[in-house]
């Protein structure tokens, strides 16, 4: 049993995660808001892992290929995500370099680790307290979207070029990979059902 609190599942009910209504377990979709009803995800962690792998696969070319191609006096310079950060730091813009580094490298990498850890922890014995997992889940849910910053930066820079404000700058092939990678990890986080964490917290109690 889950501590002193009664869960919908323990009460033999199924709860709608969208509108909060509590129904008899025989229903498969919520009559009130039409959301799919399942006490726990039907396909388990499959969708989470599928989005996770897709995001990770795209994150590799996103880092290897150039994000931004600059042409000056016939010389072409391609910079990757990490290269752009180093360049900013060399110019002395430490604050901005930190923002780009956090948004494009630190957040995505730790997000892959965090989602993987969450998915492993609800199935296997991982030596982390359940409440720690919940904090991790909340951070992942909140922070994932912010990785899109670099995509907006690239878009604004290429708009400036097209409008004649800047000489020559073009988005590289990494931009699309990176945008898709962020989108896929957002979907992975959304496919994860936090009730699984609380089931584990209930078992630990």
């Amino acid at each position: 049993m889950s501590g002193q609190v009664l869960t919908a599942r323990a009460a033999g009910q199924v709860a709608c995660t969208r509108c909060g209504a509590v129904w008899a377990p025989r229903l498969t979709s919520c009559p009130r808001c039409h959301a799919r009803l399942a006490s726990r995800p039907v396909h388990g962690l499959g969708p989470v892992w599928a989005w996770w792998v897709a995001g990770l696969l795209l994150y590799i070319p996103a880092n290897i290929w150039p994000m931004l191609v600059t042409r000056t006096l016939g010389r072409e310079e391609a910079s990757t995500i990490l290269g752009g950060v180093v360049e900013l730091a060399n110019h002395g813009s430490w604050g901005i370099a930190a923002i780009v580094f956090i948004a494009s490298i630190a957040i995505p990498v730790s997000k892959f680790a965090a989602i993987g850890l969450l998915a492993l922890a609800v199935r296997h014995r991982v030596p982390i307290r359940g409440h720690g997992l919940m904090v991790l889940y909340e951070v992942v849910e909140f922070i994932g979207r912010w990785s899109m910053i670099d995509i907006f930066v690239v878009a604004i820079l290429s708009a400036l070029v097209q409008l004649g404000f800047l000489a020559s700058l073009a988005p590289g092939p990494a931009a699309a990979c990176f945008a898709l990678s962020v989108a896929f990890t957002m979907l992975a986080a959304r496919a994860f059902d936090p009730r699984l964490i609380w089931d584990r917290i209930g078992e630990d109690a």
Partner: protein
Amino acid sequence: MPPKAEPPAMAQSDTHPTQGLTACHICDALCHDRQPGPGERIRCPRCNTVLRTGRHAAIDRLLALALAVPPLMAIGLAASFLSLSGGGAMNEASVLDAASAVATADTWPLAFAVGALIIALPALRAVALTYVLLPLRLGHAPARHARMAFRMAVDLRPWSMAEIFVIGVAVALVKVTGMASVTLGPAFWSFVLLAMVALMEDAVLCQRSIWDLLR
């Protein structure tokens, strides 16, 4: 699992949910479903997730915020977003100028994605929320397909990225210092307000209260 707990309701219907109970969408705990007092937020006793912020706040404030989006969006699109000054000359560009310039080059997928994330999806959300909330505010029956529209508005929230765009603009401007001197126009500040509206919507949106009225 030992079937220790008694189901809270004996005869359950397929059309009416169990009265007086709601389940936390994060931890599945069954909670007494009651209306919060003024300024009160009802939280899940198990995981502290906010379950209800109240009917008044849900409808009035959310509708006000949704109605603020179209004018802000119009300013954000049409007014000057960036201006370049140098050598006595001044050049201005709006978001629409930028979008049409980027969309015609081979960077159109980028223009499409950014346009969706900062213009189309926020606008669609505002329209859907207004469509759902206006009849409720006026005391009418819910509009046709209001439930679908509300679901869409909620599901699109993570993909509506005005606040992230604003930070992206700041980063881009620092990157080009030295290459060009670019200053921000009123449209940029309009996007800052759009970002704040989105964050305020998150704070007042009470999904349970609105579903109560849409049933």
